[in-house]
C-alpha cells in the first residue's frame, strides 16, 4: 500500500558534523535546514557506558506521535542517483498486459526514454520512461500495486 516518503540518512553529513564536534570540542551540535535536522552529541560521562539514550549520535525529530504508517525500506532508494521514481499517484504495471513479458527485467540494459512501466491514474495509462541509459539493477514494485508520488520503482546503474 502507500508508504511515507522519509528522508534517508545523510551519513556523510553526520560524519562531517561528528568531525566538527571533535574539532571544536563541543558536546552537541544540532543542525537544521528545511526538511532535514541532525543532532550529534558526545557526552563526557558516556565514554564508559551509555547511560542515556540521548547520546545516540543521530536524532530525527521524535516528539510527534509514532503511530503513523510504517516506513518502507525502498524509500531509501528514492535519493539513489539511478532511481526511477513515480511522477504520479496511481497503479503501476510492469508489463503492457498480464499475458505479456515485462517491459524490463533486472539485468536488462535500457536506453534513455525506453518505457519501463505504465502507471494508471484517472483511467489513463502513463508510460514511465527510463531517465537515462544503463543496466536495471533493481525493480522495486510488483505489477498492479499502488504507488505514491516520488516512490522509487527501479534503479538503473
Amino acid at each position, binding site marked *: 500500500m*502507500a*508508504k511515507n516518503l522519509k528522508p534517508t540518512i545523510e551519513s556523510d553529513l553526520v560524519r562531517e558534523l561528528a568531525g566538527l564536534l571533535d574539532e571544536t570540542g563541543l558536546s552537541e551540535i544540532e543542525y537544521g535546514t*528545511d526538511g532535514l535536522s541532525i543532532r550529534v552529541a558526545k557526552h563526557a560521562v558516556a565514554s564508559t557506558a551509555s547511560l542515556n539514550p540521548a547520546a545516540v549520535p543521530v536524532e530525527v525529530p521524535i*516528539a510527534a506521535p509514532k503511530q503513523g504508517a510504517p516506513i518502507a525500506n525502498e524509500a531509501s532508494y528514492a535519493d539513489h542517483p539511478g532511481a526511477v521514481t513515480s511522477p504520479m499517484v496511481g497503479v503501476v504495471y510492469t508489463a503492457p498486459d498480464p499475458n505479456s513479458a515485462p517491459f524490463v527485467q533486472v539485468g536488462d540494459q535500457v536506453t534513455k526514454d525506453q518505457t519501463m512501466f505504465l502507471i494508471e491514474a484517472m483511467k489513463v495509462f502513463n508510460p514511465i520512461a527510463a531517465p537515462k541509459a544503463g543496466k536495471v539493477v533493481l525493480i522495486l514494485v510488483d505489477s498492479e500495486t*499502488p504507488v505514491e508520488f516520488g516512490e522509487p520503482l527501479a534503479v538503473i546503474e
Partner: protein
Amino acid sequence: MIEKILIANRGEIALRIQRACREMGIQSVAVHSIADADAMHVRLADESICIGPPPARESYLNTHAIISAATISNADAIHPGYGFLSENADFAAMVEEHDIAFIGPSPDHIRLMGDKIAAKKAVADVGIPILPGSDGEVTSLVDAQEIAMETGYPILIKAAAGGGGRGMKVAEDPAGLEEAYQFARTEAELAFGNDAIYIEKFLSQPRHIEVQVLADGHGNVVHLGERDCSLQRRHQKVLEEAPSPALNQTQRDAIGETVTQAVKAIGYKSAGTIEFLFEDGEFYFIEMNTRLQVEHPVTEMICGIDLVREMIRVAGGAPLGFKQSDIRFHGHAIECRINAEDPRTFNPSPGRIGDYHAPGGLGVRVDSGLYSGYAVPPYYDSMIAKLIVHATNRNECLMRLRRALEEFVIDGISTSIPLHQGLIGAPDFINGDYDIHWLETFVAELPGD
C-alpha cells in the same frame, strides 16, 4: 455508511478531520506533498500517500493525484477541509463521478455560491437581506451612474467572481465613479478572468457576522448561532468569537431563523456559513461559504456539536440527530489564529520549532499540527495553530484567553501570539466595541521597535 475518508488537505484542519474520523471509527487516508511528509496528520494517519512536490498546485490542488489516491486506497469519501479544493465545484463533481462521496454540498450549490452575482440573487429570493445596489451585473458606466445614484453614495464596485476581499473598489461620490468603475472591471478581468462587476451600498463601520448552518438534505436545517469575525487584517480573519457582543437575543433569533429558512429553501446539504455585514442593526449578505470554516470551533464550543462529525454523518446519508429546539448555547468562545509570522511586520516565519508546549486546563482547546522539532514549511498558509477558549461568559473567556496565551510556548520561529496578547488588552476589544476596520487601525498604532 462511510468507512474510509481521504482528507484532501494539510495542517491543523487535516488533523481536525482525522480526529473526527478516528472518533467515529472511520479509517482515514492522509495525502500530502513531499514537504509535509513529517506533518502530524501524516504521522497519525492510518494510511498516507504522497501526492506531489511542495507547490500546492502540484499536490493539494492536483485533482487527478487526489482522485487517484482515493482510488488506490479505496476511500469512499473525500473531505476537502477549507481552502484548496473545498469550494471547487468541478472537483466536487469529479469526486462524485468516481462514486466517491464529497463531504460537502452539491457541486451545483458550490457553483451557485461561487458566482457572487448569482448568489446574491438566489439568497435574496429566499429572504436573505442584501445590500441595496445593482440587480445583478452592471455592464455600462451609464447604468452604474444611475444605480449609484439610486443606492446613494458611497458605493462599492465588486467583481462577480471575487471573494475574500479581492476585486473591490469604493466610489465616494459621482466624480469618483468612472475611475472606480474602470479600475474594478480591469482588475476583475486580470484577477479572475471575468470582468463582470456589480454595485452595492458601501458601509462605513460594519461588523462581520456570520451564521453557521447544518443541513442534512432530508429537509432538516438548523442554525448554530453566529460568529463575530470583525477582527480582520487585509481581509484575513485574525480572531473570532461567539456569540457576537453586538447582537441582542432578538436579533440573534431573527437572523438565525431567516438563514435557516433560506438554506432550507435552496435545498442545501452539509455545513455552510452565510456571512453578513452588520451595521445599525441591519444585516447585509456578503457571501455564502459552502464548506467548513477555519473558525468553526467557536461554534462547537458554545453549542456542544461536533461540526465535522455532522458533516460526515450527513454526507453518509444520515439525518441530523437534533432539531433546532434541541440546540442550546452555553457561554462564550474565542478563537485566536496563530500564524508563523512576525507579530509586528507580519513577515512569514517558517522554520523549525524548538520547544513546543500547548496550554491546557479547563476550557482550553488547541487545534494544531505543531510538535517540538517539526519544521513549518515555507510553501503554505502561515496559520500553524488555533487556540480556542470557552468560558461561562465573555469576561471570563477573555481572562482565560489571556492565561492560555501566557502558557503557550512555540520556540524557534516568530508567531502572532504577541499580537493576540496585545489585542486582548485593548479596551475597545475588551468592551466588544470594534468593526471590520478596527484591527487595521490597532495594528497601525502599535508602538514600533
